[in-house]
């Protein structure tokens, strides 16, 4: 499947504040440390955002809202991504523009 990269979603999220998912290097440490073990969160989710795959982000709504915002992933992230705040921003987007 080919994907046409679309930066509209990322621009919409970064305009609101400190969203920095583009700094994610997709190493997967976050997924390994997630106490919920949600495989999607957060690296694949952030990849969807960077690629502009709105429909996949919307389809992942339940995973986004299942996050405990415990910051275990953030403490381990070698890139220092603000993962919890990114997830919170995604929730705001899902409740407003993504519904």
């Amino acid at each position: 499947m080919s994907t046409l990269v679309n930066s509209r979603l990322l621009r919409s999220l970064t305009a609101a504040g400190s969203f920095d998912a583009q700094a994610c290097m997709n190493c997967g440490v976050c997924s390994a440390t997630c106490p919920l073990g949600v495989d999607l969160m957060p690296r694949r989710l952030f990849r969807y955002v960077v690629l502009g795959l709105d429909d996949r982000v919307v389809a992942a709504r339940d995973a986004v809202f299942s996050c405990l915002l415990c910051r275990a992933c953030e403490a381990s992230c070698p890139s220092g991504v603000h993962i919890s705040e990114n997830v919170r921003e995604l929730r705001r987007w899902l409740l407003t523009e993504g519904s």
Partner: protein
Amino acid sequence: MPLALADVVGILEDNLRRRGSVVPIPARRATRWARDLGIRRGGQTVLYTGQIYQLIPYIERLVRLEQRIGDSPLARLGGLARRANRLVDGVGLVARPSAAERREYDRVPANVARLLRGAGVDFGYLYEDDLYSGALAYDLGADEAVAAHARRVARILREHGVRELITIDPHTTTMLRTVYPRLLEGFEVRVRSYLEVLAECGLRAAAPLTGEWSSTTPACTPGTRGSPRSRAGCSPRPV
């Protein structure tokens, strides 16, 4: 089929806007813990509970109810429930914890107040004006409702002349210390956790801190108990 997420979050958001809390409870219930403690009303330094512990028994009831409804055909009526909740306080009708459940959590702010008093800290309490901070709505991304609520809390603190808040849980602490200053220009109320206040009092433990350790458990996920992964039915995955 679980209740639609948008409806659940919508109900919490509506409650915060219309009733001052995601889970509105009567002021007499929220302040019952302080009934026999004789804490003065208001003052420059106040103990601010943000109603967190008082809300837990109600949230636990709601979580159990949501799980039952989610397994029934009633789950389709989430949108109707949201519209009805705008007119009538649905939470007050369906979440009724027992007196024993309420007492269990009322002990927490009462014990914190006793600790502070024992350490010689001078503080008051805002009673019915000790409002929920909006932490859950903020975590869920309901930013507009939280901003409006923060303005209401800030106005109440200003009217009481409050300069310093002593908080008892990490959510209320983070909201008032970190989030409110971002949302409200000029919000300069000092915010300290009761643990910070006690630590700065230079107290010595009455008993030696050896042997078994105990720890404080913040109300970080009210309504959830047990291992998060086991609750979610997940197991560790290879990356």
